[in-house]
């Protein structure tokens, strides 16, 4: 070490000053680049610019050896600002707002319909571009957002834990309002930005297969659904495919069956059909308390699978 230092070429005072001023200039340039992107993030009315500003601000190294900025928004904040602005540009922001804009560094948001509950983004430990959105209290990952890879994935089990179990007692319409906002945002990302979306339990498209974690379902589980349905004046009917179906209100039909009946690895799950293609697995649990009870009683088997790599 010592010998290395002595061998280092001595520099002149002028060079030293020039180096210093270059370094400060670079730091300032870097800062103004950041600021420019930040302006875009907060002010642009163009969706694509908004997205690219958010991407460039994520994992942005703002501080340098010569210039540091004491007040900075975190990467999580950038995601939240993007999300809030996306909603407002799309005209669907009523019910959603950032709840503590006066406090820089850990922005939170709220759904008006859900009262005091606050939410925030948390960076994934596996991927620095990926963020989980969830309630501040218990951090259930409701969905995963990766703006750089253009991905948004909902996490079925957490959504159910939060919206069906934790928020039990809240008005169902209030819960649905918040969920509708999330699915709308995801739909906009899909249609306007080409995002890959996994709607999971929020997918209302007819025939969407909600796959149960257990693979094979024990007969008890179906028997229990049969008994509970009858107690609520619905009859669980046998289907030709070896499964069973329930015709519920408003022409909504739920079918539970093994999608891999001819193979040797059972793959049980459920589909929902309704005229409006509005009902999804989570709404079904909210709308029919006996199905919710059935689901929660047998949660180990009935849990809906989500992307296991990202949420695992």
């Amino acid at each position, binding site marked *: 070490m010592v010998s290395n230092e002595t061998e280092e070429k001595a520099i002149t005072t002028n060079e030293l000053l020039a180096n210093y001023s270059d370094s400060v200039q670079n730091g300032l340039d870097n800062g103004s680049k950041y600021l420019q992107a930040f302006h875009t993030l907060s002010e642009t009315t163009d969706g694509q610019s908004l997205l690219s500003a958010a991407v460039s601000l994520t994992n942005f190294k703002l501080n340098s050896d010569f210039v540091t900025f004491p007040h900075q928004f975190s990467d999580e904040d950038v995601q939240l600002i993007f999300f809030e602005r996306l909603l407002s540009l799309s005209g669907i922001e009523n019910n959603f707002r950032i709840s503590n804009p006066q406090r820089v560094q850990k922005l939170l948001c709220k759904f008006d319909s859900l009262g005091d509950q606050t939410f925030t983004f948390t960076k994934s430990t596996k991927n620095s571009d990926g963020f989980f959105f969830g309630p501040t209290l218990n951090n259930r990952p409701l969905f995963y957002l990766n703006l750089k890879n253009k991905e948004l994935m909902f996490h079925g089990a957490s959504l159910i834990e939060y919206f069906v179990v934790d928020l039990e007692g809240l008005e169902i319409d209030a819960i649905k309002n918040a969920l509708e906002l999330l699915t709308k945002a995801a739909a906009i990302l899909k249609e306007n930005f080409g995002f890959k979306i996994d709607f999971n339990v929020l997918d209302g498209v007819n025939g969407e297969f909600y796959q149960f974690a257990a693979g094979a379902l024990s007969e*008890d589980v*179906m*028997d229990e*659904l*049969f008994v509970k349905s009858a107690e609520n004046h619905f009859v*669980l*009917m*046998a289907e030709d495919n070896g499964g069973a179906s329930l015709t519920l209100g408003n022409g909504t039909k739920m079918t539970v069956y093994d999608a891999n009946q001819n193979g040797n690895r059972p793959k049980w799950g459920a589909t929902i059909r309704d005229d409006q293609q509005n009902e999804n697995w989570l709404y079904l649990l909210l709308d029919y308390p006996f199905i919710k009870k059935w689901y929660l009683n047998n949660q180990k088997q009935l849990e809906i699978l989500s992307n296991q790599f990202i949420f695992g």
Partner: protein
Amino acid sequence: MERQMETDQFSQNDTILSSALNEKMQYLNDLNDSVKNGDDLQIYQLMDPNRYANELATEETEKSQTDHFGLASDLTAQLSHHLSNKLIDYLGATYPFFYYHEYELGKFHIYFGNWWDHRMFGELDPINVRFNFDDNAYQMLSKSFQLEAENRRVNDDTMQKLGDENERITKLISEQDQRDKRKEEIREQLKENQEKSPMPWEAGKVKEERQRLNDEMLKLTQIDEEATGGRSTIKENENKILALSKEETILSLEKQNIRATFGSFDAFIENNNNLYTKYLQSLSKESQVSDGE
């Protein structure tokens, strides 16, 4: 002379034979035509002319008719299959809650309802237009109707017993802390008891006390053991209760369906007993309608 007489006596044999054979051929021809023409009413008449005459009370004379069905009786399975088509259509309207599965040519299982885990309820006999209900399934339904009049259900007692048992075990489990505390006390008391050096006249009393404490300890340990295995017993009982609830759900759906169609179980039985007549009358009405066209 004798011989001559004999010849005379049987001189008409061939004529009789020929006529009998003709009658049989005619019978088979008629049967064949009825099959080809889809005239099931005629088939029923040919298969069992006496029952037909009795139950449909036609104007024809009451004298017993020759039954040639023996000629075609080896074709019962095929005939049964043929007859089932129209019969099941008819039953579809009159017994909308029954479903059939032809598990072998001309043989049909009856299923009650098409709900989850519907019961196999017996067999359909298209030749005799009859339900052959499964004894167990039928008896259970019949009992369920009976008990219903008293506002009871077939499995109520068993379910109640299992429920009570679970409540008892749950209590045992929740009282673990109390038992542990009591066991600690007993241990203390036993220790005290052992440290006593009683006067001879008190020795019996001390021994008695020790025995009492040991007995209580043993009893508490036994309860502990039951509580330890309690969770799996509770789960087993819950499964039993579920199975019984399922049975009740099925019975209740069966009763609902019978009532919706027939009004009562008695009316259902009555209709079953007259199924042959009712069905053939319906076939006869149908053929009159089509004749009239």
